[in-house]
């Protein structure tokens, strides 16, 4: 292992690069200085804190700390799904559909990867569980929010064709077949495309990190392939559950379209 530790002076030097953003914004009067400043500060604080939080959690050999932090990550990811939507379901469903779905698919895939495939000792080793959960969540949340956004927008735009089918006596999921399929496709497309680009265009972050930390590149790619499968599986099943769940909520047992259940 030839791991080179970074000093704070190293980071300060790199921080000069962010000035380029500021200068461009000032020069072209983009008005981005304020949000640039705020978001850079957020990035600094959040990443520094997470370093300490993870260090603390790694030091506790307690499954409770790991599970507690994992739950917090899932709840925040659920909030992020909701924040990305222009129109969402009314009431508990708005937050619940994404969060519940991610809870099931991300914990299933993470436990499968860590508990069965990687098999560290102890099984709840936060060093494995938390980063893998984070990667799975980050990708499923974008699949789910894309899928839900597409479903809701398509149902609103295609309302007359959906209701024409309902009026012709088509069944609940038959009448919304087209919007449903489009939503699933849109949600799953990014991960399918990402698999095609990976390795040549993009060297995925986790693999790069392991290589820089001194791991054998072949071993690092094996981990990356595992992660790709986890992400693909979680995104597909997460998108499916969230989209079908919302489609269920946006129709009723009399086969009607219920756009009144949107905010």
């Amino acid at each position, binding site marked *: 292992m030839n791991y080179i530790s970074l000093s704070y002076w190293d980071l300060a030097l790199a921080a000069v690069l962010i000035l380029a953003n500021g200068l461009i914004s000032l020069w072209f009067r983009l008005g981005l200085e304020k949000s640039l400043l705020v978001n850079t500060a957020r990035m600094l604080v959040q990443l520094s804190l997470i370093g300490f939080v993870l260090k603390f959690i790694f030091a506790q050999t307690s499954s409770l700390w790991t599970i507690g932090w994992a739950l917090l990550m899932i709840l925040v990811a659920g909030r992020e799904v909701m924040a990305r939507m222009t129109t969402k379901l009314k009431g508990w469903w708005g937050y619940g559909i994404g969060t519940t779905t991610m809870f099931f698919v991300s914990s299933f895939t993470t436990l499968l990867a860590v508990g069965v495939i990687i098999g560290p000792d102890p099984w709840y080793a936060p060093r494995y569980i938390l980063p893998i959960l984070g990667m799975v969540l980050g990708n499923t949340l974008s699949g789910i929010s894309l899928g839900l956004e597409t479903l809701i927008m398509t149902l609103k735009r295609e309302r007359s064709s959906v*209701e024409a089918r309902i009026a012709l006596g088509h069944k609940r999921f038959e009448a919304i077949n087209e919007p449903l399929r489009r939503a699933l496709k849109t949600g799953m497309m990014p991960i399918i495309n990402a698999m095609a680009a990976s390795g040549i265009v993009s060297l995925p972050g986790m693999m790069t990190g392991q290589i820089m930390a001194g791991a054998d590149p072949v071993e690092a790619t094996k981990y990356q392939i595992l992660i790709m499968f986890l992400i693909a599986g979680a995104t597909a099943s997460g998108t499916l559950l969230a989209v079908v769940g919302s489609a269920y909520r946006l129709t009723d047992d009399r086969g009607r379209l219920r756009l009144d259940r949107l905010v």
Partner: protein
Amino acid sequence: MLKVRDLKIHGLEPISFDLQCGDVLVVRGPSGSGKSLLLRAIADLDETSGSIFFDQMSKNDETAGNWRVRVRYLAAESGWWLERVEQHFTNVSAARSLGKDLALEDKLFDSPVAHLSSGERQRMAFIRAIENEPTVLLLDEPTSALDEETGKRMEDKIGFLQKSGVILIIVTHSNEQASRLATHVLTIKDGAARIESA
């Protein structure tokens, strides 16, 4: 026979009426008064309280799909979900021959939906609505996009359906059309619906 009992439409007093086979009820009232909502409620497209019976069938006891096959609603704006017109029909040859009566060229059935004019789409949607012989037909401004000539052809078709025993409820803004078609008129005014024989 169609029996509507205490049907609650948003902003209106409960509506009740009976129609026999061959009756044509024309619904009149200003825009936004609830005419379309009345048709949608009868087709069970919106949640409403009240009950509706057709012969022995009750809306609330029948499956929604069966109800809407018998009690067919045709919206003012037609809806299409596949590429070509023809794909939307269950019996394409019957649809094509109905098309002739409504002055629709045969080749239109093979066209993409997007290439049709709004009047052509409106007639196509009408054919689609009647192709599996509903017994109650709810038409929301069926001739709004048609010229006088094709509008007359549509009215002839409506008259033909009436003679064969279909119950029709029609929303129209045209006084002439109303007087030509109606056996009964339902007028919505000041939050109440009043029904009388034409």
